[in-house]
């Protein structure tokens, strides 16, 4: 790229910041920018010189994103930038720092504590917090002191050092805090070593069946098998391949941008929007209603044998996700048999076996907040957060040298570790970090509270006989979250019985 040999480069957010390539003619932003500052930053990658204008092309992926892009461009013109406050000292990163320091040689506790405090985010970290992290690195930090014999760090001659110096390699192989989706290498079938063709995300690999073709490294390959965490392929030509998807990191639309979008929806017509999008909004206004600032719109409708409820909260993906988790657990209590939900930046779509008829008690802020902590424990978002915290803090390293590759039954998921800690050691350091991280990031509870304050008691519940224009894109959203409850067990029992009789096995 620097040498100017590549004509184009496709990337996730990884090239947003810190890149200084002057030769980029054009930035093509696919999908909505999610926040205004990010959009400006991205556009600025083109013609990265102080005296040349930057050019970009925005490609919204659906009609809602058209609206969002429009609102973001208006904000850029108005100089109305947004941004989130910087996160406070992440302790999982500190654990990694302590382990890496130990790899370089014995260290003095006070000196390292002092060094850590010289970094901005950690300036206010207490000695007790630091010692907690040190204890985690040394002994695992469990209430049950099980690893006295297998400590990672030993205190010797006034300094901390690795018990087993060979561990340095394992620790160094796992340096870093960017949590990518799990990537699997793609290799030619029966090839011995050599560079892999590339990498795909595990979720994409899981969607392949032998015989599928996909495009990687500029060639079409045929999927043969998933073996020892390697995607084995053979050469294939002439068929339309699938394209591997890389989801990257998902950001939530900022509060400021969401408010702008809501305001834009209030216009009586939309001459600035492409016709198909303006018509889509007009149709929504005709068959249902457009969401309004200060009120919460909820639509319910039947679709393919399930009952759906769509809540337009405009609180950003993470908060809408949490709202989905909280509401479905309240619905489970009320025996409304929820089956799952999916969240986007502007709405949460819930489906289940019973219709939602009285949402107000479900949305009572005090009851939502009261149940939050206890409820948080069992849910998928916490497990996802725990997975990344455990990796960063060095509990479950991603890479191990000479990792035993045979027998996938030897490995088990970090969800099991989460469940075990929740049951036996709920105040463990990593559980505390997970809760704090989740509240700030994936849970984003503050934005739900902000939304509930904003709408007060003003809920508009509309019963419709079919999916509405605004709800339709929600049916296509990725990242559906299943609700493990009575409804699922009910369906599972029906489905297994059906399969048994279909196979003549009853």
């Amino acid at each position, binding site marked *: 790229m620097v040498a100017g040999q590549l004509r184009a480069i496709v990337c996730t957010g990884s090239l947003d910041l810190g890149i200084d390539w002057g030769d980029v003619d054009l930035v093509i932003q696919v999908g909505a920018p999610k926040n205004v500052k990010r959009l400006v930053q991205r556009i600025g990658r083109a013609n990265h010189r102080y005296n040349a204008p930057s050019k970009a092309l925005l490609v919204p992926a659906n009609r809602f994103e058209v609206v969002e892009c429009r609102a973001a461009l208006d904000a850029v013109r108005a100089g109305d930038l947004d941004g989130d406050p910087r996160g406070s000292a992440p302790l999982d990163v500190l654990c990694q720092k302590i382990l890496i320091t130990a790899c370089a040689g014995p260290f003095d506790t006070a000196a390292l504590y002092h060094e850590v405090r010289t970094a901005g985010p950690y300036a206010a970290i207490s000695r007790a917090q630091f010692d907690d992290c040190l204890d985690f690195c040394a002994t695992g930090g469990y209430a049950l002191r099980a690893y006295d014999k297998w400590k990672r760090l030993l205190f010797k001659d006034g300094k901390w050092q690795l018990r087993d110096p060979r561990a340095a390699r394992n620790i160094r192989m796992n340096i870093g805090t960017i949590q990518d989706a799990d990537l699997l290498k793609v290799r030619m079938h029966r090839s011995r070593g050599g560079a892999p063709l590339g990498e795909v995300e595990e979720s994409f690999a899981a969607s392949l069946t032998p015989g599928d073709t996909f495009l990687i490294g500029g060639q079409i390959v045929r999927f043969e098998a998933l073996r020892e965490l390697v995607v084995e392929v053979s050469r294939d030509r002439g068929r339309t391949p699938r394209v591997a998807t890389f989801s990257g990191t998902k950001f939530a639309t900022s509060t400021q941008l969401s408010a702008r979008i809501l305001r834009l929806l209030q216009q009586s017509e939309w001459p600035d929007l492409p016709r198909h999008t303006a018509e889509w909004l007009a149709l929504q206004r005709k068959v249902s209603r457009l969401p309004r600032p200060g009120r919460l719109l909820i639509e319910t409708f039947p679709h393919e044998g399930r009952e759906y409820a769509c809540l337009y909260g405009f609180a950003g993906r993470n908060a809408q996700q949490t709202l989905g988790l909280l509401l479905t657990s309240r619905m489970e209590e009320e025996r409304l048999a929820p089956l799952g939900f999916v969240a986007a930046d502007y709405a949460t779509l819930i489906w289940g076996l019973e219709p939602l008829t009285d949402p107000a008690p479900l949305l009572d802020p005090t009851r939502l907040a009261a149940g939050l902590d206890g409820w948080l424990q069992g849910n998928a978002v916490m497990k996802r957060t725990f997975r990344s915290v455990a990796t960063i803090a060095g509990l479950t390293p991603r890479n191990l040298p000479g990792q035993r590759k045979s027998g*996938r*039954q030897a490995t088990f998921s970090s969800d*099991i570790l989460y469940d075990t800690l929740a049951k036996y050691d709920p105040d463990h350091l990593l559980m505390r970090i997970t809760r704090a991280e989740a509240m700030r990031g994936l849970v984003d509870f503050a934005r739900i509270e902000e939304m509930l304050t904003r709408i007060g008691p003003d809920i508009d519940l509309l019963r419709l006989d079919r999916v509405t224009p605004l709800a339709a894109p929600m049916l296509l959203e990725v990242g559906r979250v*299943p609700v493990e409850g009575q409804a699922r067990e009910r*369906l599972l029992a029906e489905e*297994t019985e059906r399969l048994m009789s279909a196979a003549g096995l009853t």
Partner: protein
Amino acid sequence: MDASHHFEFQGCTLTARPSGALWWAKARTLTVSDLHLGKAERMARRAGLQIPPYEVQDTLQRLQSEIEALSPTRVICLGDTFDDMEAGRAVAIQVQDWLTRLQSGREWVWIEGNHDPGPLPLSSAHLAELTLATLVFRHIATPETGEISGHYHPKAKLPVKGAGAARPCFLYDERRVILPAFGTYTGGLRTSDPALSRLMGPRARAVLTGPRALPMPMPR
């Protein structure tokens, strides 16, 4: 409502429990497989990792619940009870009293697995395999008929779209039964893996564990 699944196998009525344990009511025999006790200790020793050290407690607690619910006269641990021999020695001493309490008043059989192939400092019988009536209990499946085994940790995906993770499952056909792993720190092998689909006949069933034991045709 009965949450277990009952089935006929080689003239015996067996019960797949939601917990992943196999109950043979007539012989009052409870069988569990692949407890992998000491996995955390082994990971600390071998890889320098310190995963939550509660898996022995959790696994034995669940085993105790099954024993209390069923009052078996015989308990069979079908191999890979310990994650390796060293973990076995360490854990056996650690939880000796607990194991003794569980064992008292009943026959207890340890079958060898590939992870724990030798004798351990435990009371009660330690065998490579055990034959009872028409059934033979061993760790890894062989071509023999009438076999109850473990080893593979079979798991199956739920047959409902978007239902999330797979669950450990039993597998059975006319010739053999394969138990899911009972241990807390165990992963699973999909039933679609050739290692499992080769072993099982075309009419094989999978019984999902969880809140209820759910039988279904084995996913291949």
